[in-house]
């Protein structure tokens, strides 16, 4: 399977994730789109790691997964805090600097 196919797929997934971040009006779906972007990057790492016969690609992927998990946890905690305050999950509801 040519490496180009994996890179194109990864680029496509990254763009879809970026589109999700820009276009969605719901904080949780926004976080999910960020997860899609991180997964696209994971795929690139693993594909290149396979091509060079190194195991480093997979190891970096572990670290990305771990950081993504930590970031999802803290991000969701923030979403809960924000929701408690403003009763809305639309990012446009949080535009004033006043708390």
């Amino acid at each position, binding site marked *: *399977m*040519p*490496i*180009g196919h994996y890179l*194109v*797929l990864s*680029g*496509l*997934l*990254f*763009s*879809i*994730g*970026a*589109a*999700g*971040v*820009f*276009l*969605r009006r*719901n904080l*949780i*779906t926004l976080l*999910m*789109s960020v*997860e*899609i972007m991180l*997964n696209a990057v*994971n*795929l690139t790492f*693993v*594909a290149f*790691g*396979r*091509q*060079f*016969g*190194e*195991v480093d690609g*997979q*190891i970096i*992927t*572990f*670290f990305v*997964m*771990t*950081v*993504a*998990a*930590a970031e*999802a*946890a*803290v991000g969701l*905690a*923030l*979403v*809960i*805090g924000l*929701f408690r305050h403003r009763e809305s*999950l639309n990012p446009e509801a949080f535009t004033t600097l006043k708390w």
Partner: protein
Amino acid sequence: MASDALLFYVFAAVTVIGSLVVVSQRNPVYSLLSLVGAFFGLCGLYVLLEAPFLAVVQIIVYAGAIMVLFLFVVMVLNVPREDAAEWDRAHPLYRPMAVRVGGALAVLLALEFGWALSKTSGMSIGVADGKPAVSSVGELGRILFTDYMFAFEVTSILIIAAMVGAVVIARKRDE
């Protein structure tokens, strides 16, 4: 092998369709479930790239833990469907400015990727053509605990910090 190519296209299709549904569905629970489906597609791709341990860890960590966390938050907060009225002003040109610019940026990003990839050489080298794959868990563990030891320890501190932070931020204030 021809079956390898077929499997690649099947898993790639599952992943892309899952991601598209995530980005376009209004009901957050449906987006969540299709993201889990996309993760299964990625798991298949990792198996094709001869990283079985990583594939299973992807299911355990992403689909089994992170997505369950998302699902819990969606249920506890009783997240409503996105406001239908806003989406029914359907035509993209009527959407607020930020959305228009954002959408244009995403398309621009995709086009840039396409252009960059078309100018890259070596795109047709097979993934399996070079050196043999390292897929044994023992080898992975050995390198993780020798070459990447420092990153490993720092990651454990990161996880503890994230745990404590999440608990503190999401805690109910006793007022």
